[in-house]
């Protein structure tokens, strides 16, 4: 891929709302993406290879669990910083952001929130540094949008638990050292278990032939009579609310991440529109192309305001799950529309790997589906405002 010329738009001077530290966090991540992601990402996606070396790099800059306290290897940053890191990573590639989202919000977060002190001390520092990679198993072959129906289960056999079942569509699974697995107890209650690679009966076959998130490894988790030590239970929270708490954190990051993907598409199309000459004029001088660019920057700016406010609410511990759903849904949809319009603006060049747009566009097809589909988030908002449950 050509040199990364990315310049972030800031139409409403939102930088004025950020602290000096937020800006440093964002710029550091942006610089890291330019140095470590942009030069390798196109080839990794073309070959559908997970660039494993980025795991230690993400650990080094501190993109894993940035809001986890320093004593456990995190940086103790606030939620807006976390959002900005996700924005910049996804500006590089949604797959890279996914790797970091899963590690931070779906693996470190539940260990920190629902685990005990020994579990925190044992797992968090290695996850923060990137020495270990984690994954999160909630979705199953027969239960996607409806995880409460999950079939994966464990029995208490006195000195250990016996885990059986299968998870599907699990990011990071093929390379993960540990998995946070959600399974039902004999009392039919959902609990989180830490399953480690190497436990007998545990395997992680890779899912091949994806057209989306090709630089992120996806796989299954298969549990065939896996003996899980009792100390691996996340004992401080159970029920569907436990995995949903993790999803709140991850979805918040995705709402920011989608802005990154949208900014990269907009910035690429804007630059191209000033350089590409047709009918003796830069294509950016034609009204139809200006309409696309004007709408893109408007939507990006609205999305930025949405996430900034949501970040404030999360910092105060006041953001509701429904508020997070709204931002995830709106921003991913906004990014998809921008990716499609931006791709068209580049004409034939838009379908090549010379430019990042088509890659973002394909990635976003996963982002709009995982962590609650576009439809499911709409139903959450619908239920929140009407009080009627339209899921069933």
């Amino acid at each position, binding site marked *: 891929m050509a040199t990364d010329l990315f*310049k972030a738009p800031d139409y409403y001077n939102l930088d004025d709302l950020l602290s*000096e*530290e937020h*800006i*440093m*966090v964002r710029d*550091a991540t942006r*610089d*890291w993406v330019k*140095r470590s992601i942009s030069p390798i990402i196109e080839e990794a996606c073309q070959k559908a290879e997970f660039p494993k070396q980025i795991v230690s790099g993400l650990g*080094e*800059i*501190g*993109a894993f669990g*940035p809001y986890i306290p*320093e004593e456990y290897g995190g*940086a*103790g*940053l606030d939620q807006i*910083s976390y959002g900005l*890191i996700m924005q910049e990573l996804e500006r590089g590639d949604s797959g890279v952001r996914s790797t970091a989202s899963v590690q931070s919000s779906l693996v470190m977060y539940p260990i920190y929130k629902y685990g005990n002190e020994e579990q925190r001390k044992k797992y968090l520092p290695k996850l923060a540094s990137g020495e270990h990679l984690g994954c999160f198993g909630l979705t199953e072959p027969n239960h996607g949008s409806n995880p409460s129906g999950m079939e994966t289960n464990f029995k208490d056999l006195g000195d250990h638990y016996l885990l059986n079942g299968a998870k599907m569509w699990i990011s990071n699974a093929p390379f993960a050292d540990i998995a946070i697995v959600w399974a039902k107890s004999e009392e039919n209650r959902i609990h989180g278990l830490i399953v480690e690679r190497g436990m007998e009966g545990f395997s992680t076959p890779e899912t091949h032939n994806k057209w989306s998130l090709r630089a992120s490894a996806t796989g299954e988790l298969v549990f065939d009579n896996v003996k899980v030590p009792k100390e691996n239970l996340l004992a401080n929270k159970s029920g569907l609310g436990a995995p949903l708490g993790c999803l709140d954190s991850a979805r918040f990051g995705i709402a920011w991440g989608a802005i990154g993907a949208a900014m990269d598409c907009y910035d690429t199309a804007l630059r191209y529109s000033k350089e590409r000459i047709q009918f003796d004029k830069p294509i950016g001088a034609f009204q139809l192309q200006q309409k696309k660019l004007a709408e893109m920057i408007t939507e990006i700016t609205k999305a930025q305001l949405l996430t900034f406010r949501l970040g404030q609410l999360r910092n105060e511990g006041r953001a509701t799950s429904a508020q997070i759903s709204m931002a995830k849904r709106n921003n991913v949809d906004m990014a998809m529309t921008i990716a499609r319009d931006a791709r068209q603006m580049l004409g034939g060049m838009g379908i090549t790997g010379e430019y990042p747009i088509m890659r973002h566009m394909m990635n976003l097809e996963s982002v709009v589906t995982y962590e609650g589909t576009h439809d499911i988030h709409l139903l959450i908002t619908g239920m929140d405002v009407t009080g009627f449950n339209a899921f069933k």
Partner: protein
Amino acid sequence: MKILVCISHVPDTTSKINFTNNNTEFDSNGITFVINPYDEFGLTRAMQIKEATGATVTVINVGSASTEPTLRKALAIGADDAVRINAEPTDAAFVARLLADYAEEQNFDLIITGRESIDYNGGAVPGMLATYLDIPFVNACIGLELKGTKSTVIREIDGGKETLEGNLPMLLAGQKGLVEEKDLRIPAMRGIMMARKKPLTVIEAGEAVKQTSVLGFELPEAKAACTMIDADNVEQLVELLHSEAKVI
């Protein structure tokens, strides 16, 4: 060992440059500022020395409060403490005098500056500072090794390199080569958090005289639009050279 790295706060190289106040002042509206790239090579070499020998690294800037994010970034990269001398750095001798007053009291073993700052490209501060401090000075430095109080320094010269040996204390004005671009440090999140707790001391400017003042700045003339003419169309070329360019 104590190392001082002088850091200037300059517009990002991709900035659009404008002037205000009757073209006598730089318009910093909408400009992103960065650590002067020449200084960043020096800061990175200082960090490597710190890691190898346990030296302490102080970063210093003469500037207004708006330069503090740049100093904080240097702290996030790993400098131990930062000093800002509160003054507008509009004249080289003035800046060098203020830096010298501070450095004199602190007895640094090594002072590193950039060869020049990429905003005004004066390149005068390092030499003046070494003169005020009466210590050896090597300009355009592209290599530095230390052994106790002895230093081996490589300097870029026209079409080649010169290797020099000297004793600390010493002042080096660095550039690329001191370290390479790939060695430059990106602050990590933990570094950014730690920077919060590191001292950033503000010192009021002492007595120093500005020896020059700016009368005005001018931008280079904008490049004229280029008209492309088909190779077969010599007649049109002649016509344009005559009627528009007025050269024939």
